């Protein structure tokens, strides 16, 4: 059995994808010679050459637009946008072109593009380095959006993303890059499937990315208080796993959704709305949202007060149970 970090597992996923398909290209800012600010592309240029793994100028719209053109030439681009907030200069290319090209060409030109974005907070980073951009991508029809929460699943999701014929946004939780997990890398569950990480019957804690670990901590804390919480890792924010959400609502009757992003029009709202649509009669309490505040991501020293804490999750779960 091997021990993996998320960074290492993602690196291996890129390595294996580059090996499996010689049309796969990896490029972005500092991904080549230096191997990426989070080492996710470490060693790839040495292994596959600077034709397939290369550095780009600081040009996010250029990087994504280049990927669009490469798809017309039959390539399969995997690009990195260095940090969450630095993906915004490319939003026009993503929304107007990447997400729509397959439809506007009536399926004649696919966009098998993977856009990797180190995202979310929790690393006491500078401003613009702790944003949660998932709403912008998940709301954009034509994209698929995945968020790994652990090393092994990071490998699985990135392999699936690169193999997928549609554009996939991979939001990698920076705060988990160095978190370790034991096990073997495997193909695993595909895009669109969520997973239950801990079973429970009283309440379901739904989250993704770094918040999954907090949800598990909260579940432990709740267990001591006699509350059996189920922990769901969404894995994929577009599409959402409706069946799983419905099942959890029916089986536990109580849902708490947790994310770092601001609450207003966040993915938690979608989860709440869907759960209500899919299992209204099973709901014993309103879906609770434990999220970042509707405010810009704070400086490092206020970060802990912004991110959903185990205490806030536990309190929300207790509110639903007591409801």
């Amino acid at each position: 059995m091997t021990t993996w970090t998320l960074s290492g597992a993602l690196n291996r996923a890129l390595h294996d994808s580059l090996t499996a398909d010689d049309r796969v290209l990896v490029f972005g800012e500092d991904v080549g010679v230096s191997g990426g600010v989070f080492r996710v592309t470490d060693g790839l240029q040495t292994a596959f050459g600077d034709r397939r793994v290369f550095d780009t100028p600081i040009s996010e719209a250029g990087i994504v637009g280049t990927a669009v053109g490469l798809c017309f030439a039959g390539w399969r681009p995997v690009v990195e946008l260095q940090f969450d907030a630095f993906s915004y200069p490319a939003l026009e290319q993503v929304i107007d072109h990447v997400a729509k090209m397959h439809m506007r060409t009536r399926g004649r030109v696919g966009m098998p593009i993977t856009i990797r974005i180190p995202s979310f907070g929790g690393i006491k980073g500078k401003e613009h380095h702790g944003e949660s951009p998932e709403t912008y991508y998940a709301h954009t029809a034509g994209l698929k959006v995945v968020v790994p929460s652990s090393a092994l699943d990071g490998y699985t999701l990135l392999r699936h993303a690169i193999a997928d014929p549609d554009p996939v946004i991979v939001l990698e939780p920076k705060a988990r890059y160095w978190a370790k997990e034991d096990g073997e890398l495997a193909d695993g569950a595909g895009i669109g499937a969520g997973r239950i990480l801990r079973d429970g019957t009283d309440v379901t804690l739904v989250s993704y990315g770094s918040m999954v670990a907090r949800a598990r901590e909260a579940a432990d804390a709740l267990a001591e208080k006699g509350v059996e919480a189920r922990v769901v890792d969404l894995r994929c924010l577009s599409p959402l796993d409706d069946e799983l959400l419905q099942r959890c609502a029916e089986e536990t009757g109580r849902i708490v959704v947790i994310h770092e992003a601001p609450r207003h029009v966040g993915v938690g709202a979608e989860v709440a709305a869907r759960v209500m649509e899919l299992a209204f009669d099973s709901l014993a309490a309103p879906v609770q949202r434990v999220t970042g505040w509707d405010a810009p991501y704070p400086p490092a020293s206020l970060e802990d007060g912004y991110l959903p804490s185990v205490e806030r999750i536990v309190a929300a779960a207790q509110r639903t149970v007591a409801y």
Partner: protein
Amino acid sequence: MAASAPDHPAERPAHWAGSEPARILAPDGTAVGDTAVGLEPEDLRALLRWMVLARRLDQECIALQRQGQLTVYPGFEGQEAAQVGSATALGATDFVWPTFRELAAALVRSVDPVQYLQYHRGTWHGGPYDPRATRFGPICIPIATQIVHAAGYALGQQLDGTDAASIAYFGDGATSEGDFHEAANLAGVWRLPMVLFCQNNGWAISVPTAKQTAGEIWRRAEGYGFPGVRVDGNDVLAVYAATREALDRARRGEGATLIEAMTYRIGAHSTADDAGRYRADPEVEAARAFDPIARFRTWLLAAGHADEEYVAACEREAEAFALEVREGVIATAAPPAEWQFDWVYAAPPATFERMRGEALA
């Protein structure tokens, strides 16, 4: 690029001021440069034919729009030489990245005009024709964004070691966008086989080139490390020669070229635009003196490469062609409702399929 003598400058459209554009035929049709651009007489005749067909089709499209058969339509009267000359210079495997105004170039690349016009009929989006088969990219409305796609495609060719190039068409207004710059910088630093072809028609809707930028657009190239040329965009021979030279450079692995083709938008921005609100008729009338078709026809006849009968035949063909396209457009029906869902994803998720079911129930 070598500049030739100025012609009656007084009459020139204001935005042609500054560096003299390269020119082979003067506005009056007399040769002022080397007309041996490497085209056979039949190819030279084809230049006239395409320009005549294109202009007639443009008129037909405007008529079709007025009759409610097309939605808003952006005409290209006056830009026939810029589009036909450059498109004629392309090799079979080169890929075109158009804006929304390159119907003339599309014809030369043998894109089916009826398919193309599905876009303006409102029956489909960007790529109603097959962009791969025609090597003519989707019609692109977000200004300058297609230039980056052209760079990506050119990179793909470079990686595959083909000798195909990209040509990106864009307007004077597009040069103000960040995407123009990012594409140009990548083209330079990666020595991409591509041509950045700017049709400077003097206007970006209501904004004249002088309010768009203070520099001369072709001069931008040096800052990116590749050559820029300014050419008389209403001189089809000069446009052909400049584009041909740029493509040869690209194939030799020498990288990109920026071509600024000086032309003029005779019509309004589109059928939805009232140009009277921002420009005076005399300006338009003066610009007509530089008509690209009359100029080339005069020379073609004088040089004996074609006779009046050929010209008349082109016009007859154009009439028939316009009628044929009209019928095709009118016969184009609305797509079935399923098309809203059929290609959103290549691998549609179950959740998406459920919504499709809800919608089409």
